[in-house]
């Protein structure tokens, strides 16, 4: 909402600069986003006289003019039909930038030089009038114009216009009057004499017009007034400028006046062409199912039965509170009008406006709530001004339908104000602040009985009055109470603790943390769900903003793959990313299931930097300059699991779409699967146009949140010497490390302190169909030193177990 200071001053007498007004409004909850100067906006445009207007030698519709620009004579080509010798006109000189941004340059038009441009009212953005060049003696009637002087000289002083963000619950602020009330209260101002007169005016109604409100719930109040013998025409310059300051262009005097009153009182008015109303009569009723009306913007609209329409004896002529109909629009040929000033049920206007996707200055005010008592003063103001603009006009038939307003009374305890604001408030101060805002106040013991003004639809509870007092007194006066916890103490949820540890452990592996979007495309989501073996019951949006965001991600793979692809496209040689977040699937519950997880991706070289020469690498040798492979990645995930204190995770081969065959695994603890890891498959990567191998890891965090609450019990490290042995076994090629590892562990028993694989070999010396796995073993007894014979015995048990369970044998040196 724009608030021109000049307009404000017509209502309130106060002593403050525009900046101070802005500050006062902002600190009272009407945020002023900016202060602009308005008016005198035409640098480069001067008053000029047309000396001669001759036909252009090469064009029928153009004229070649000789112009006196104040001692300088210029040639200007002009296309306007009305240009004639003797006119006083606005001339845009060379170099002028017009309000629409066009720069005036020297030009040759059909072979004739033009040294400037004569302007129409529309070109100066004064009105929609583009029928001809503006005659300045009409615009500035009564002022003596000096040829060659800037036109800005003749416009009034520039006016400061505040851009006010009106709070949603304060529709009264959608009019100059409402903001004037706030300024008056804030700055200790007074109503001007003019304001008092305007507020006291009442439009009188007779019972002479055929008006019926058939839907009293939707329209409790309606005033209809016929005005005859009106002359529709351009508005006077004061009216044009007043509307212009509000950002509204002039249309014609009648429509401009309805808009003026709308901006001033916040009360929408509508003028019908009386001759176009059948009857003439007005019926306010529900729309019939499928009823159609063509609105002022030329669009045909179909209404539902929820909509409220203004109809004449036969048909709908306006959508109540939203927009008038085309057929009854006021036009140049209109001689009589019917003025409508009504109060419509906010919810009804809101629903209709939403259903039609049509929001207007009127609907914005009606749907938030117009002051139900202001209509009479607003229509009186309109009629007074109309009779001034059209001296021959006469008031005709009228009628008012009006429901009585229930007064709203609230009780306010100053103790409640003190308690909520945290600053002592005496009853006198409360009374003073409320009175300044025109609340009616009477004392009732230690409390106040408060009559709420009709325009304050937001005040329905005692605490609403507390806010009035707090903001009027100023939030800056509220002290800071010392912080105290009152015995409360903060705890981190186990979830938050696990999330932090999971992030830190992954950061320590040299992965960057990503935050990806939760909304993905359906095809991405399906592929991602499949990779984890989830039944793809996706949660779809019914109103997605795009195809890329139509479903909730079932896990975090899609977002990370998008990020991976983005970085590869940007030329990254290695991408290492992870994210902690929730994957969402519909598991048939009341709400979708949200699984907290961490997902990580790595691709690219093994080291951020090495400068070792590659040399001739032995086949199969580990190349530090190579790309991350499955086991590099697995090392990261194992270290992460270890930092997360996951107890003896079991790695098993796992196959599902989305992974490279033979290069994916699942990780289980006991009976439950907690993670997946492996190299992603071509089909999945192709969706993201990724052409390099990418290794992924997915771990569910919920099981760790549960486990995190367990406190570990301390164990004292063994103090007796340990015995180390390196043993290598030949086992059939298909035997996994996990199998052999388990077999050795089982056979060794309690004294086995650690077992580490240190070599995998297959080549000369290995029996056909076998491979060699070598382990470093360490044995230690908790209570005594192990005897050599005991170690021998354990070793023999292990060899026997390998032979029995794995079909393997000890590899002798």
């Amino acid at each position, binding site marked *: 909402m724009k608030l021109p200071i000049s307009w404000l001053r017509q209502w309130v007498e106060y002593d403050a600069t525009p900046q101070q007004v802005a500050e006062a409004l*902002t600190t009272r909850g009407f945020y002023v986003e900016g202060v602009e100067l308005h008016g005198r906006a035409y640098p480069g445009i001067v008053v000029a006289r047309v000396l001669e207007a001759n036909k252009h030698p090469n064009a029928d519709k153009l004229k070649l003019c000789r112009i006196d620009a104040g001692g300088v004579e210029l040639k200007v080509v002009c296309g306007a039909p009305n240009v004639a010798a003797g006119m006083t006109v606005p001339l845009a000189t060379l170099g002028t930038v017009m309000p629409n941004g066009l720069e005036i340059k020297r030009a040759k038009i059909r072979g004739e030089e033009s040294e400037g441009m004569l302007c129409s009212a529309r070109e100066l953005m004064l009105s929609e009038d583009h029928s001809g060049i503006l005659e300045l003696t009409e615009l500035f009637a009564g002022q003596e114009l000096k040829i060659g002087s800037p036109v800005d000289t003749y416009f009034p002083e520039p006016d400061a216009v505040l851009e006010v963000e009106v709070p949603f*619950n304060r529709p009264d602020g959608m009019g100059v009057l409402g903001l004037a009330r706030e300024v008056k209260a804030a700055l200790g101002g007074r109503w001007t004499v003019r304001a008092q007169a305007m507020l006291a005016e009442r439009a009188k109604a007779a019972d002479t017009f055929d008006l019926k409100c058939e839907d009293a719930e939707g329209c409790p109040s309606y005033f209809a007034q016929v005005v005859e013998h009106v002359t529709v025409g351009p508005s006077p310059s004061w009216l044009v400028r007043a509307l212009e300051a509000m950002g509204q262009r002039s249309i014609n005097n009648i429509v401009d006046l309805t808009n003026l009153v709308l901006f001033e009182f916040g009360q929408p008015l509508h003028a019908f062409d009386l001759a176009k109303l059948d009857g003439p009569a007005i019926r306010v009723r529900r729309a019939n199912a499928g009823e159609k009306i063509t609105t002022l913007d030329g669009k045909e609209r179909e209404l539902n039965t929820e909509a409220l329409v203004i109809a004449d004896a036969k048909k709908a002529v306006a959508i109540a509170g939203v927009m008038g109909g085309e057929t009854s629009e006021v036009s140049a040929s209109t001689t009589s009008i019917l003025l409508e000033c009504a109060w419509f049920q906010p919810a009804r206007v809101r629903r209709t406006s939403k259903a039609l996707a049509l929001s207007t200055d009127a609907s914005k005010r009606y749907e938030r709530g117009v002051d139900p008592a202001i209509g009479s003063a607003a229509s009186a103001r309109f009629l007074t001004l109309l009779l001034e603009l059209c001296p021959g006009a006469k008031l005709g038939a009228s009628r008012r339908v009006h429901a009585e307003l229930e007064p709203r009374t609230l009780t306010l305890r100053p103790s409640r104000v003190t308690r909520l604001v*945290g600053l002592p408030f005496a009853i006198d101060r409360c009374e003073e602040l409320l009175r300044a805002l025109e609340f009616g106040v009477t004392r009732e013991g230690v409390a106040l009985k408060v009559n709420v003004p009709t325009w304050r639809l937001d005040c329905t509870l005692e605490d609403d009055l507390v806010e009035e007092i707090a903001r009027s007194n100023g939030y800056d006066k509220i002290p800071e109470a010392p912080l105290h916890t009152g015995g409360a103490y903060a705890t981190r949820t186990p979830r938050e603790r696990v999330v932090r540890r999971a992030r830190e452990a992954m950061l320590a592996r040299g*992965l960057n*943390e990503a935050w990806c*979007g939760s909304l993905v495309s359906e095809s991405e989501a399906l592929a991602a769900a499949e990779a984890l073996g989830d039944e793809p019951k996706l949660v779809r*949006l019914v*109103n997605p*903003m795009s195809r890329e965001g139509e479903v909730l991600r079932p896990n975090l793979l899609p977002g990370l793959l998008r990020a991976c692809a983005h970085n590869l496209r940007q030329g990254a040689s290695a991408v290492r990313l992870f994210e902690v977040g929730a994957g969402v699937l519909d598991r048939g519950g009341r709400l979708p299931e949200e699984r907290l997880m961490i997902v990580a991706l790595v691709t690219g070289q093994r080291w951020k930097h*090495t400068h070792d020469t590659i040399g001739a690498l032995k086949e199969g040798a580990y190349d530090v300059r190579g790309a991350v492979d499955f086991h590099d990645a697995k090392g990261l995930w194992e270290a992460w699991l270890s930092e997360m204190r996951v107890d003896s995770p079991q790695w098993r081969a796992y196959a599902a779409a989305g992974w490279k065959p033979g290069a994916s695994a699942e990780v289980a603890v006991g009976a439950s699967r907690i993670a997946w890891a492996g190299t992603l498959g071509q089909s999945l990567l192709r969706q993201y146009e990724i052409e390099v191998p990418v290794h992924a890891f997915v771990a569910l965090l919920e099981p760790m949140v549960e486990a995190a609450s367990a406190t570990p019990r301390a164990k004292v490290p063994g103090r007796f010497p340990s015995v180390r042995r390196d043993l290598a076994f030949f086992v059939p090629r298909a035997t996994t490390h996990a199998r052999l590892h388990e077999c050795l562990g089982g056979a060794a028993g309690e004294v086995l302190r650690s077992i580490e694989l240190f070599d995998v070999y297959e080549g000369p010396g290995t029996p056909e169909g076998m491979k060699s796995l070598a382990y470093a073993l360490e044995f230690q007894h908790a209570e005594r030193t192990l005897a050599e014979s005991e170690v021998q015995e354990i070793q023999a048990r292990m060899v026997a177990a390998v032979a029995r369970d794995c079909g393997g044998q000890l590899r002798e040196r």
Partner: protein
Amino acid sequence: MSDTLLAALDSNWSAADPAALTPDHAARLAELEQLDPALVALYRRGSEVLAGAADANALRDRHTALLGRERGVITLGLAEMPKLSVDERKVRGKALNLVKRWLTEVHDARREAIALEREAADALDVTLPGRRGFTGRPHVLSQVRDDLLDLFHGLGFSDLHEPRSGTRRVQLREAQLRSGPSGARRARHVLRGPDVVLRTHTSPGWVRAMEERKPPLRLVFPGRVYRAEAVDASHMDQFHQIDGLFVDRNVSMADLKATLNTFARAIYRADLPTRIIPIYFPFVEPGVQMDVQCVTCSGTGHIATADGGKRCPVCKGTKWVEVLGAGMVHPNVFRAVGIDPEEYTGFAFGMGLERIAMGRYGIPEIRLFLENDLRFLEQF
């Protein structure tokens, strides 16, 4: 005497002045001249060839020839002693021991010097880069979130996590709590599935917390929220909020102000001016907006440019930047969850992580947060 012993030394051996190794070389020669002139030539030559040894091998050979236990010159000299008179023996014995000690010193000094020379020759180019693994950085929004949670934990607020989707029923109840039309107005921005809606705020958390727990309550609710918004430089369809809730007997706006100012001092700057002004939110009464002074223009509303300055693009000349919304919990919200608003009062606040991060680090576009460009992530 000296001559015969000298003959045991290779005459081709390189020599050098031992004065660099034994600063009192001249004094030693003079002392020996006094004591036993026959040994002067031996000591001179011996110390010179030790000093002149080029490397560890040469030094070892010369040490063997001079000081070797079996065939060293000193050993040979001592072996000659029985041929001398008692008096001569006394002098010679003393002199030979002196020469032995001095030569040993020269040898040791030379050995040390050779070792140092050798280390100097093997020096590394310490400016070559190391073999470096990858480093990981936490996401900038994580850092802001951690800072906020740490701060609020310090103020006694525990964290609670709510599901991001709610049923229609929950959202509907929420809409009812929001008096008047704003619930419906907001509904336009709701992303929803067939049976669920995605939360548009983290505020539904309060309702659940107040239903399930008894006051006093001190909680923060971090989380992602969703809006049906087209994505551009300053809008996203998903972003992040932290809501806070404090309910107890006699909580007032003065407590709220203290909490918000503590937040601003900790997260922005201790001396950054702040203000609180009224604003309308449907679920609080009175409502509060907190602004901090614009960092871009230092609260002047203008920034300097080549052609004389212009209005600050961040605060639009208002000198202030909004950082959060807050207020006293609406009595209707209390009633809806079964808390007596006459017994308890409370405040709530909500802030956006992105807005804080953008202000703090000068991040110009909200889209950058979820794009995950490594060149962006690695800056923080």
